């Protein structure tokens, strides 16, 4: 199984961003890296000029680079961003169907986990338009994953699933980080940069539940499929998506690589990941038709 490093969903400083990708380029055993802004177009200007260097370094490190597009497009300047991405010369990951309007017919592209690919009909439509890989919506259960992987094999389109990191659950036009700070999205002062993994949201009983990342809501728990790779492999999944967080993502990738190659077993992989950040809660419920927050191991 291949490993994909998903796009950075959080607001990191340009230096942190560059350093992160330098290390990934040199050390991480991943085949593909998706790079760029998915969550908030206001963040992009801060690191946009670092992208070409990161791309080059990653390619020299033997990684396939794909540029990520925005997850929710409403503004005129955001539509222009999509046009620029289409002209970049690199393959693009579609996260909002608006992007399809800017891709020349016949251009190949990948599809990210924010696009609703729930059935063979939709997969077929996107494959015919040029989709080479589709990362499925994280809420899909194993039955759907299996059916879609089989359909993908017939279409020549690879199927990827979310395997590590806080789960993207919803996006809004309203910025929840700004709202907490008593601000609006237009005058947000980029307060989301204080939370490099998102800001945890708890219930009134003090139970961790969700996390806020600007306009995006993610799970408080870290999805972790390291204990379920055999089933994913049997289902026909071709690639796993690891979503970047603080901590040693290179080691995360190494553990998934070792587990996917069956050099270590599922329990060892889970233990290794837990040791990296013992305070983090894991979950894998979606795959088994349970609530996403559940952890079956």
């Amino acid at each position: 199984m291949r490993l994909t490093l998903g796009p950075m969903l959080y607001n990191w400083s340009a230096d942190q961003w560059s350093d992160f990708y330098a290390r990934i380029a040199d050390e991480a055993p991943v085949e593909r890296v998706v790079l760029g802004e998915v969550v908030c177009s206001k963040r992009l200007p801060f690191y946009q000029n670092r992208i070409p260097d990161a791309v080059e370094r990653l390619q020299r490190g033997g990684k396939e680079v794909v540029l990520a597009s925005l997850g929710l497009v409403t503004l005129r300047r955001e539509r222009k961003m999509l046009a620029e991405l289409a002209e970049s010369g690199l393959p693009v990951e579609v996260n909002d169907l608006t992007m399809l309007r800017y891709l020349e017919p016949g251009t190949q592209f990948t599809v990210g986990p924010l696009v609703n690919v729930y059935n063979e009909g939709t997969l077929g439509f996107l494959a015919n338009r040029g989709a080479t890989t589709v990362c499925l919506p994280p809420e899909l259960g194993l039955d759907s994953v299996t059916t879609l992987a089989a359909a993908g094999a017939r279409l020549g389109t690879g199927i990827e699933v979310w395997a590590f990191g806080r789960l993207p659950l919803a996006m809004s036009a309203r910025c929840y980080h700004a709202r907490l700070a008593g601000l609006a999205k237009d005058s947000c002062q980029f307060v989301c940069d204080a939370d490099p993994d998102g800001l945890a949201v708890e219930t009134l009983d003090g139970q961790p539940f969700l996390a806020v990342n600007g306009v995006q809501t993610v799970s408080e728990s870290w999805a972790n499929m390291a204990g379920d790779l055999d089933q994913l492999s049997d289902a026909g999944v071709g690639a796993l998506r690891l979503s970047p967080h603080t901590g040693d993502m290179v080691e995360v990738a190494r553990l998934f690589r070792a587990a996917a190659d069956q050099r270590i077993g599922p329990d060892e992989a889970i233990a290794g990941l837990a040791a990296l950040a013992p305070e983090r809660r894991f979950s894998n419920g979606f795959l088994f038709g349970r609530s996403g927050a559940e952890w079956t191991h």
Partner: protein
Amino acid sequence: MTGPVLELVCPAGTPAALRAAVNAGAHTVYCGFADETNARNFPGLNFSRDELAAGVAYAHRAGSKVLVAINTFPRAGAEELWHRAVADAHAAGADAVIVADLGLLAHAAERHPGLRRHLSVQAAAANPDAINFYAETFGVKRVVLPRVLSVEEITAINRDIDVETEVFVFGGLCVMAEGRCSLSSYATGLSPNMNGVCSPASHVVYTEEQGELVSRLGDFTIHKVAKDAPAPYPTLCKGCFSAGGQTGHVFEDPISLDAAELIPRLAKAGVVALKIEGRQRSRAYVAAVVKSFRRATDAIAAGRPVPASELAYLTEGQTSTLGAYRKTWR
């Protein structure tokens, strides 16, 4: 001087509610089949095939149209269920189907070219490019705009598209991009996309604890209210939580939309149809809301001011908001 005639699109959760809506002056009603093909798949709600045919006949006799919502995302390996729903809606004489899924739109366009296709709010088409993509690719004739746009944005969108736009003016608010939200399945395993339910009743528990009414969804406490405060339904995004040292409604207050006062501006923005949310509500709600909004649209058509809304008692939180139509909502 007279104004535009806006089409009032009204919810019909049951045949009785359909008749109530039509009798109260709905130009159009929308409904769904009693299965997972629509996003209000609640127990005891929706129409059998026969009930839909009877409802269409009733509405057409009164000069009203009927739209059938087939707006969930077909399950892999079970697309046939959704294909049959489209075919049956067509056979029953529905005036249009409301669809969100790409694959289902492609199927409907190919197999039922004569059946009008509306784009559901679940497709989250929030800009002219996305709308034109659906219009050109699938022959969609109308789009229900996501509830995340301001009036200014709606005006701009209408300038750059050829299809009709329909906007929500009353009822429950969805604050996330619709059709793209997994909050419910994260807490319960059931989602609007896959199962047609959000914060499903099957996972809702109310208990009285220490003089407070506690509402839970699955394992998670969503809200606690004092004895005499309005009781909320534990829709996740309307819950009370703690984040960053603060406690409150982190995502949205448990209130609903009443944009009656904005109808003249929405008309100027080029909107063709006004949608009332509430297929899960009773025929009493439908009758009262439709009557009130029909008065409003008639007033606009006659060039008179819109009468004040008296619908506060029907809204959650007993108060209302203008939602995203005011830009400060963000």
